[in-house]
């Protein structure tokens, strides 16, 4: 087991390509996406039932054990969230190495 950070981001589906592009650029190539997630927040309801997909969210889960990489990543995430809304949570976890 190895301690790591567990990052959870909820953001609009349409913003995900930018997020993954950012990760790729930083060499963060491990992530999991849960698409078509619904929710409610400062910008109202998102029912994940609209044709444009405009109103569905994606939950992004990232395990990262490189603090430096993590910080630069979070710096890049903030502006996205400011413009398009969403949340980002960071918590501690143990990573089962294999």
């Amino acid at each position, binding site marked *: 087991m190895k301690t790591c950070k567990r990052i959870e981001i909820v953001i*609009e589906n*349409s*913003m995900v390509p930018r997020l993954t592009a950012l990760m790729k650029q930083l060499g963060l190539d491990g992530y999991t996406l849960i698409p*078509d997630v619904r929710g409610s927040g400062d*910008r*109202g*309801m998102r*029912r*994940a*039932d*609209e*044709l*444009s*997909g*405009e*109103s*569905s969210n994606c939950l992004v889960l990232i395990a990262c054990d490189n603090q430096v990489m993590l910080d630069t990543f979070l710096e890049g995430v903030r502006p996205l969230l400011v*413009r*398009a809304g969403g949340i980002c949570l960071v918590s501690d976890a143990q990573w089962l190495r294999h």
Partner: protein
Amino acid sequence: MSVFMSSLSTPPLLFFFLGAAAVAVRSDLQIPAQIAKFLSLYLLFAIGFKGGVALSESTIDASILLTLLATMVLSAVVPVYTFFLLRRRLPIADAAAIAATYGSVSAVTFVTATGYLDVQGIAWSGYLVAAMALMESPAILVGIVLYNHFATREGNTTVSVSWLQLLRESVSNGSVFLILGSMLIGWITGTEGMRQVEPLVKGLFLGLLCLFLLDMGIVAAQRLRDFQQSGERRLSGETFRVMLVAAVLLPLLNASLGLGIAYLLGLPQGNALLVVVLAASASYIAVPAAMRLALPEANPATYLTMSLAITFPLNLLLGIPAYHAAIRWLL
């Protein structure tokens, strides 16, 4: 009046009502999201293919190209005056997004209009499907140009867009791409191709349109309710009024421009109606999606609610027969 009733009492429109009614009585009726998405893809595929086959059976002459040009110009002009009408009354980003939304078109309104014509036995030309596809994108570009120009003037943060990317994004938009692609394939394979896919493309068309409009009714009504519930907290009553008035008057204004074009081009009844419908309709798929990416400052609660929850039903239920009456009276 009778034409209103007769057009309202077709299965597709009644299913739109049914969807709205389901929300009104707080029914848990829902079309699964992926099914709704598929139904919209099907409609684009079918209308595109039909249009392409029709095109392959006619000859492309100057008048057709003229119509395509005129409609594209229209979709670039509409956003301009829309923007100037709204910029003093709404945040500049919202004004730009609404302008783009109303310059572009609603594929389903167009599709419903073709169904309306088919049922009434009035002919229409396949190339108008191309017109629809071509009208999807220009408005997006115009909207963003306007925003950038005036945002800087008023010291807002501007959008740093690479025009090339934006152009790419708008033609490569899934919906636009599928219509154009299906149209091309219909045009290449022609009558023989139609023979192969007819049961899907023609046979099921009105039936699946019913199910899709059922979902649209649900989605539109839910959005209206969410807007009422959560809107208050966020938007001023003034904004409300502006949105409502704009969502009702813009289609009429744009429709009359479309009517003028149809008149000048001397289009036959069916084509005239479709051009007017294209002018009057507002996008709720391609443009909102593009706006979220290019102009996230704009609040979807304004432009999407206007186009999806007010203008769309208005065109669908009253607009089409009204425009048709006007055309018959004028042309």
